[in-house]
């Protein structure tokens, strides 16, 4: 694998994508196995919670809304695209997941749509929701799959999933960016009066966040990507930095924010830990209360709305 990677580095260097060369160079220097977590959850069900979130890594999070569980962008593999190696093992083993009402996939990039990981979910979920144009090239699985266009909804056992527009880019292999240009989305999950915004992977777009707030007057939680940050001139077209993510959180009017999409794979010039530090600094600058932004470790679960006896 090392020889093709070296050639890939050279090819990307010719293209002028310096950050990609640096990211792949750092990936080559990584140990083969991701860092082990000291203690992993074996049971993510929280009887004491109405709303809880477990950050599994990257954009993968397990959201509990009362008795329903939804998994976002399931990726459990040790690498994505056979090149980008995971830094830290997933926060829970797929076999230990509770039964899911649904899993949602925000777009078809390899760090968000993992065929291997979806196979691991076959015994766990009945439904996987995808953005438009994503089903055409999806392998067949045991669960049902549904595509949602922006503002379209799907409902299962009282859980409502609505696709919300975000600002990103489609495709999976480069040229298919042209052939599936709409294959990315965010989602809002609603159940028993609780609502959760999942941004997937998005650049900052005030109009889109305002539009989401107009439709969903009350959001309890916003799962928002905060990285990659650098190089900004390249990343800002498709990714929010921590400051922008906090502005998005404000525009959405959510009660809590859980940052995602950082410190799991190397895909930028960012150093491990940097995104969290910048987020904390920006939170103080923007004068947001500390408790409103839950900066979780991979594998950490937080109860945001406790169940009142």
């Amino acid at each position: 694998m090392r020889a093709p990677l070296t050639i890939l580095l050279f090819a990307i260097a010719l293209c002028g994508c310096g950050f990609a060369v640096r990211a792949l160079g750092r990936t080559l220097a990584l140990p083969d196995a991701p860092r082990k977590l000291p203690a992993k959850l074996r049971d993510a069900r929280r009887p004491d919670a109405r709303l809880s979130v477990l950050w599994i890594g990257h954009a993968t999070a397990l959201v509990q809304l009362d008795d329903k569980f939804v998994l976002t962008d399931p990726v459990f593999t040790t690498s994505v695209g056979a090149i980008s190696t995971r830094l830290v093992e997933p926060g829970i083993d797929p076999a230990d997941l509770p039964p899911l009402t649904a899993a949602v996939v925000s777009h078809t990039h390899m760090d968000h749509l993992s065929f291997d990981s979806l196979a691991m979910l076959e015994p766990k979920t009945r439904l996987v929701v995808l953005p438009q144009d994503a089903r055409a090239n999806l392998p067949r699985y045991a669960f049902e799959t549904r595509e949602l266009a922006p503002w379209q909804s799907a409902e299962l056992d009282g859980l409502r999933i609505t696709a919300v527009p975000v600002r990103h880019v489609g495709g999976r292999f480069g040229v298919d960016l042209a052939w599936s240009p709409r294959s990315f989305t965010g989602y809002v999950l609603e159940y028993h009066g609780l609502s959760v915004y999942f941004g997937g992977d998005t650049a900052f777009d005030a109009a889109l966040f305002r539009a989401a707030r107009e439709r969903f007057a009350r959001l309890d939680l916003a799962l928002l990507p905060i990285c990659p940050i650098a190089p900004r001139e390249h990343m800002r077209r498709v990714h929010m930095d921590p400051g922008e993510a906090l502005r998005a959180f404000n525009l959405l009017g959510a009660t809590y924010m859980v940052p995602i999409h950082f410190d799991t794979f190397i895909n930028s010039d960012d150093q491990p830990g940097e995104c969290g530090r910048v987020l904390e600094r920006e939170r103080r600058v923007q004068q947001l209360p500390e408790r409103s932004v839950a900066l979780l470790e991979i594998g950490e679960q937080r109860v945001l709305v406790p169940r009142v006896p």
Partner: protein
Amino acid sequence: MRWALIALCLFLVAPTATRAQSVDPPRLSPGLAGALWSAAQLVPSPVFVTGSDGVGGGLRWQVTLFLLALGLVERPVRSLVVHPAARHAGAIELYASPGWLCCAPNDRTSWLLQLGGRLYLPLEGRGERLAASLGASYYRASPQHGVAFELGVYTLSSIVGFSVTIAPWLTAREVSTALVFHYY
């Protein structure tokens, strides 16, 4: 081979390489995508051929004439432009594969042509990490022709692979191995 790999990589990263100063997400017009796809099809797979005539090297290309995707949720029938998942998740493919042989000990160059079918089988990760293929083809290595059988293994979304083709009934009894590049 090294340059073929580099060329493949260039095509893979080309869309992200066009860094405009705009804050808009990158876009790729269908026309440019078609041109990139066409150019990617010109990237040859290096071939190593052994037969009773000697040993030779060469290059091979492939066009998918028809593909029946067995492992996808939607749109089972594809042609020419084929998403990698349609192949590696399990498929039946009819293909044409022209090739060019050179560097044989007798310094002879010749054209190869394979017209055949192959069955793709997903092995790991719905075939994305590892897939295999079994195939048979009409094999013409000027001036000989006959039937050939093929076995292939593929990785990286079936973009990179390795295949062995045996044409046992040719007078020269050729065996060719190829490092396969097939982008989309």
